[in-house]
């Protein structure tokens, strides 16, 4: 049944006004986990990075894994919603804001890790290229510096991408609210009025952004992969890493998006707005990425095995049958063997529950993948005399867990101040068209069907 604009407004703005005790409970739980993580970090800064399990030769481990993982998750949003915008897939409308929010948060979390993992974090600003009294500019050859530029560009881009379509919604809230909300949202809406000109410019800007953000997103994760590919470490120094990481990123991103949407759907009672069709379509994307991921892994493994370069084989065997084999095969299960069939069967894919079942192991598996790229390679470099191993301590574990909690926390708060679904875009979907212009009707119908 068709909902009036008024009903839509009410439904989607409810979360901003009403919160159950469950909400506050979750808030407290997640909050304390985040606090624990920050304590752990403080403890590490005070006592030195040595309180983590890092050692020689495994100079990088959990923190960089988390870094790559969260940057990967960040590809959920902007990239996906941008692609969907460009391809004008109208079913995207209820999904985009959620996705873009994931991007912004995941990115901010991921961007913290280069700091967390520094030996002397209080000097992190030496990475920033500015004319310092030390008369030293950073080494622009270093992939870490490329990271600095790429991540900042991406962060600015995706924040813009999240905010632009929010102005009209802020205006909406402004008009309906009273008291402090009126003020705050009034300011946030930048005095949006909704003249045809504004609408037109906004849509134009969004189209440009969508086009611009895709190459940025791709470059970001490519550069993250180059942090590894640029170092002559067995198993790292490979040209496949760029696309491999990008694919992996989108893969984990979509999975995260599905989970987040399912949660919101339940918590905020958005059943009418986030419909199975959205999950099914995302599920299709997820299936494609899962297959793509498997293809990349196979290609990478096969070339290593065939090349049979001694030092690379050491890494190869230690992941296939050696110390890390359990993790490796778990990863394969999580990323391919479990999700692929579920998503391939239409009846399952069509059910929200099943898409979530397929997504959760993927998030785990993709974290494992990053870990397995980093640690086995570092612990088995060229000279066998220098082989080492790695065991995390409570510090790394706490901080890692904390980031997941942080993600939840940020999202929870976000859903309290933002309409989690872009209201005006949703309404756009509900518009009935003049007989004059049946142009885009087809997709609209597609979006309509329950």
């Amino acid at each position, binding site marked *: 049944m068709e909902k009036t604009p008024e009903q839509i407004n009410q439904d989607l703005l409810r979360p901003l006004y009403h919160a159950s005790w469950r909400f506050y409970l979750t808030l407290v739980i997640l909050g304390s986990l985040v606090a624990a993580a920050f304590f752990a970090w403080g403890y590490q800064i005070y006592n030195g990075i040595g309180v983590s399990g890092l*050692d020689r*030769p495994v*100079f990088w481990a959990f923190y960089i894994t988390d870094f790559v993982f969260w940057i990967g998750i960040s590809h959920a949003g902007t990239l996906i919603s941008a692609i969907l915008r460009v391809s004008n897939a109208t079913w995207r409308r209820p999904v985009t804001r959620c996705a873009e929010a994931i991007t912004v948060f995941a990115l901010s979390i991921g961007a913290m890790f280069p700091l967390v993992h520094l030996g002397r974090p209080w000097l992190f600003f030496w990475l920033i290229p500015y004319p310092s009294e030390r008369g030293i500019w950073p080494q622009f050859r270093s992939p870490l510096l490329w990271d600095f530029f790429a991540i900042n560009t991406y962060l600015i881009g995706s924040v813009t991408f999240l905010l632009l379509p929010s102005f009209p919604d802020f205006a909406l809230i402004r008009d309906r609210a009273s008291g402090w909300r009126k003020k705050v949202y009034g300011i946030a809406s930048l005095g949006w009025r909704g003249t045809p000109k504004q609408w037109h410019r906004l849509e134009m800007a969004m189209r440009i952004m969508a086009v611009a953000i895709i190459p940025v997103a791709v470059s970001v994760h490519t550069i993250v992969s180059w942090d590894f590919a640029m170092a002559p470490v067995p198993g790292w120094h490979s040209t496949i890493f760029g696309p491999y990481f990008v694919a992996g990123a989108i893969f984990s991103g979509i999975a995260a998006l599905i989970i987040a949407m399912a949660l919101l759907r339940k918590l905020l009672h958005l059943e009418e707005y986030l419909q199975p069709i959205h999950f099914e379509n995302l599920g299709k994307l997820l299936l494609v990425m899962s297959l793509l991921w498997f293809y990349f892994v196979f290609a990478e493994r096969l070339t290593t095995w065939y090349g049979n370069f001694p030092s690379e084989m050491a890494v190869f065997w230690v992941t296939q049958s050696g110390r890390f084999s359990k993790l490796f095969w778990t990863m394969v299960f999580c990323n391919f063997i479990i999700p692929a069939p579920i998503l391939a069967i239409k009846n399952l894919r069509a059910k929200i529950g099943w898409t979530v079942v397929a997504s959760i192991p993927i998030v785990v598996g993709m974290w494992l993948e990053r870990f397995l790229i980093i640690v086995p390679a570092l612990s088995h470099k060229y000279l066998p005399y220098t082989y080492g191993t790695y065991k995390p301590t409570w510090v790394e574990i706490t901080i890692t867990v904390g980031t997941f909690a942080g993600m939840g926390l940020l999202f929870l708060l976000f859903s309290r101040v933002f309409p989690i679904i872009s209201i005006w875009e949703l309404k756009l979907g509900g518009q009935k068209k003049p007989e004059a212009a049946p142009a885009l009707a087809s997709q609209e119908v597609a979006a309509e069907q329950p």
Partner: protein
Amino acid sequence: MEHRWGMVIDEDRCTGCEACVAACHAENNIATVGDDQAARGRAMHWIRVERYYEGNFPDVKVKFRPVPCQECSDAPCEPVCPTYASYHNPEGLNAQIYNRCIGTRYCGNACPYLVRFFNFLNPVWDKPLNLQFNPDVSVRSVGIMEKCTFCIQRIKTAEIKAQAEKRPLKEGEFNPACVQSCPTEAMVFGDLNDPKSKVSRLSRSDRSTTLLPELGTHPKVTYLKRDTWDNGKNA
């Protein structure tokens, strides 16, 4: 004349006595990390004697190979450092500037020889062990990467002395601590730019090779392979 400091290590002479290791600790204020940290793989030895077994009992062979920093001419550790802490000095040494290091440990990953060592915790010296510190070498603190320097403090001292006396450096006028202590004279140090120096003569030997040549790092440390007894010489 511009110097290019290099080293030749003769695996046929090295007996694995580890004098070089102890000498290096004494010269360069390298911290001893203690058993717990050592167990976690954080022991710091700027030079190590690698031991490799070949064959099985009773036909066992062992190869010793002292590995200091290879001082690569094309060093993977240099371009990856975002703060120029790991850099190439005019005499071709891979210097590590401790004050610039912020501890990304990227150089440690990039180094194929793993000769870079990281201060995971603040180093500890029970008094009065600290009285032994070599005043010419700075003491590293937590979060800093450190490595073999070819005893750059000795190089500089000798060069300054030579300058003051307005004369070129004499060969063998100084040596890194490891070379000086080596009881079998397995290690030779000198200027590779001087074709007559012992080090460049030896580096042209028919037994000479470098560590992991396939990586194209062009180390300035040359290894002389283990020789065999009946290689025609005794015929």
